[in-house]
């Protein structure tokens, strides 16, 4: 079919050895806007059909030389003309072999004399059928092409998935069931395909930290994506590997799933840890000799020093010790961030933790002429005591550094039960509002409040970042490393808690720490409360 609408309805080739008949047919069709080519001989008809295939052929059966059946057979034998519908015409009284007509490939027949409207209807019907068939064929060709294209695309993506050097897994979000994994994933985990597909994450002995897993899942559900998420997993052979995950939530057949791409960073981590421990050693060893030498000089036993000389030695020792604190803080933070420092949770009494922290900080507070007031509650926490100790001393030392002489610092605790609305317990200046808390399990709420000059509102979020100080010159004057609060945040996060800073009513700062209490501990609390 040519582009654009042709000036006629269809191209019809009429073949009849009787010119009168042809004349009549031709006239009828032309009147109805068909283009008609009339021929009287079978051979001429074949040539005409081959030269310019018509849309339809009207073919007389009884013709000298070459009869209608033979013409039709030849048309059907030729690729160019095969698809052209042929309607036989036979005169009334002539022997019409209907079966033969269909056998040789005719689609219909009409008998003379015509019922004009009937002939036209049949012609139109067959033209319509032919058009539909052509459309169908074209559509078929298009579909086949599309299938080929899609297959190619699918093959490309399948190959990208299967041969990806990065391990990839698709799991259901609910239950974490493996739907698909690639060869790299199997190589990493050591499992075979049948051992993985259809199983849940917790059914394989992957040794995942389920707390961290649920944390990540919650984050994924919230943000839809998770980047550079570090996780340790255990291979089938029992080897521990560290992987860096990027997870995207996707939907497969209406089911929410997680597409996870992993990167094995075990070797990198090992080098990192080696580096940390090397730096630790290489920085601290010379400082050991330095502080030691200064210390010995300071005794005066190696030669008498002037008062100024003593002062200089004290200054050198002070600064060397500050350098040691900085190195310790950096290493601590690195170890915590890299997950190298694992928690060793034990049952600890909060009062004892408070007491120890205050004992450590009391000399510093006294020197700065600051009173420490401790208001603990009776509760047992399942935490890493050393870490909580570090958290409390860091918060207290921070508060002391930024308090003026004669002021007071309060270290307090309250149990926050889920039935009590947050607002009642938390100050109204709460920042940021922990929106997720209302549905949280019972928690211990620790606060450290000072009467210092407070943190500007725009810096409240920043104070937990590394080397973020409200005023950098302050820190130097106070001997801080700028890492204390970062370490606090790491410790609290390791304990699945929350930490934030706020402006205390009436000036000063208030640092809030929320530590989750486990259910067993809640029972203890209840007893205490009811006693």
């Amino acid at each position, binding site marked *: 079919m040519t582009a654009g609408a042709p000036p006629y309805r269809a191209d019809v080739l009429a073949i009849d050895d009787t010119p009168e008949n042809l004349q009549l047919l031709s006239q009828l069709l032309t009147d109805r806007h068909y283009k008609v080519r009339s021929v009287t001989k079978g051979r001429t008809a074949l040539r005409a059909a081959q030269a310019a295939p018509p849309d339809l052929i009207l073919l007389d059966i009884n013709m000298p030389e070459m009869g209608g059946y033979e013409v039709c057979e030849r048309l059907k034998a030729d690729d160019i003309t095969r698809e052209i519908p042929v309607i036989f015409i036979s005169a009334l009284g002539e022997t019409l072999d209907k079966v033969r007509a269909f056998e040789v490939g005719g689609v219909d027949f009409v008998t003379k004399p015509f019922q004009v409207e009937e002939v036209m209807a049949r012609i139109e019907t067959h033209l319509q059928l032919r058009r539909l068939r052509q459309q169908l064929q074209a559509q078929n060709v298009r579909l086949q092409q599309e299938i080929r294209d899609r297959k190619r695309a699918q093959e490309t993506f399948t190959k990208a998935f299967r041969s990806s050097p990065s391990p990839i897994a698709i799991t259901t979000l609910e239950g974490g069931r493996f739907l698909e994994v690639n060869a790299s994933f199997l190589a990493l985990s050591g499992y075979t395909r049948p051992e993985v597909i259809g199983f849940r994450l917790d059914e394989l002995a992957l040794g995942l930290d389920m707390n961290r897993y649920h944390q990540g899942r919650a984050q994924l559900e919230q943000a839809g994506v998770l980047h550079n998420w570090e996780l340790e997993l255990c291979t089938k052979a029992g080897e521990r590997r560290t992987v860096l995950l990027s997870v995207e939530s996707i939907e497969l057949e209406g089911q929410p799933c997680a597409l996870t791409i992993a990167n094995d960073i075990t070797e990198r981590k090992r080098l990192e840890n080696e580096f940390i421990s090397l730096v630790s050693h290489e920085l*601290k*060893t*010379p400082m050991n000799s330095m502080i030691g030498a200064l210390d*010995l000089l300071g005794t005066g036993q190696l030669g008498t020093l002037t008062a100024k000389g003593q002062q200089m030695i004290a200054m050198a020792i002070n600064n060397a010790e500050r350098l040691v604190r900085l190195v310790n803080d950096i290493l601590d933070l690195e170890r915590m961030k890299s997950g190298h420092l694992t928690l*060793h949770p034990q049952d600890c009494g909060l009062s004892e933790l408070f007491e120890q922290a205050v004992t450590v900080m009391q000399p510093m507070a006294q020197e700065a002429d600051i009173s420490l007031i401790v208001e603990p509650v009776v509760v047992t926490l399942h935490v890493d005591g050393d*870490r909580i100790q570090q958290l409390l001393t860091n918060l207290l030392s921070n508060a002391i550094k930024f308090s003026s002489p004669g002021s007071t610092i309060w270290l307090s605790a309250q149990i926050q039960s889920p039935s009590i609305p947050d607002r009642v317990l938390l100050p109204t200046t709460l920042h940021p509002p922990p929106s997720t808390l209302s549905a949280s399990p019972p928690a211990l709420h620790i606060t450290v409040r000072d009467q210092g000059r407070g943190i500007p509102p725009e810096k409240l979020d920043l104070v937990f970042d590394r080397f973020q100080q409200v005023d950098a010159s302050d820190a130097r004057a106070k001997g801080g490393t700028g890492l204390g609060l970062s370490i606090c945040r790491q410790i609290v996060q390791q304990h699945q808690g929350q930490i934030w800073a706020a402006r205390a009513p009436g000036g000063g700062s208030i640092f809030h720490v929320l530590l989750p209490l486990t259910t067993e501990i809640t029972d203890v609390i209840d007893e205490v409360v009811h006693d």
Partner: protein
Amino acid sequence: MTKCILIVDDEADVREVTKLGLEMSTDWQILTATSGADAIEIAAQAHLDAILLDMMMPDMDGRATLKQLKTDQTQAIPVILVTAKAHPSNQQDFDSLDVAAVLAKPFRPLKLAAKISRILGWE
């Protein structure tokens, strides 16, 4: 009877400062060793009351030296491990070791003697 202490450290400066610090604050006899192998040899001959053993040393590190010391007739000598890696927060890493204590570097040499006496109950 005066105590005899062996300081094992591959760093000459650390050995010297530690030795001097202990000598200035006590009447102890202080010996030094520059390596694990050196330490094992001295420990077998001298009558030591305690060994201050550095953790990170080339060839034979503190761990290996400790293991050797604890298998010989020297096993009764209390060992105090000294390490730059120890930080109050990761004391647990050393829990499994058969040592009297783990001291973090850097330490104050003048306060060291009191610390050692406290650890070993010499007060």
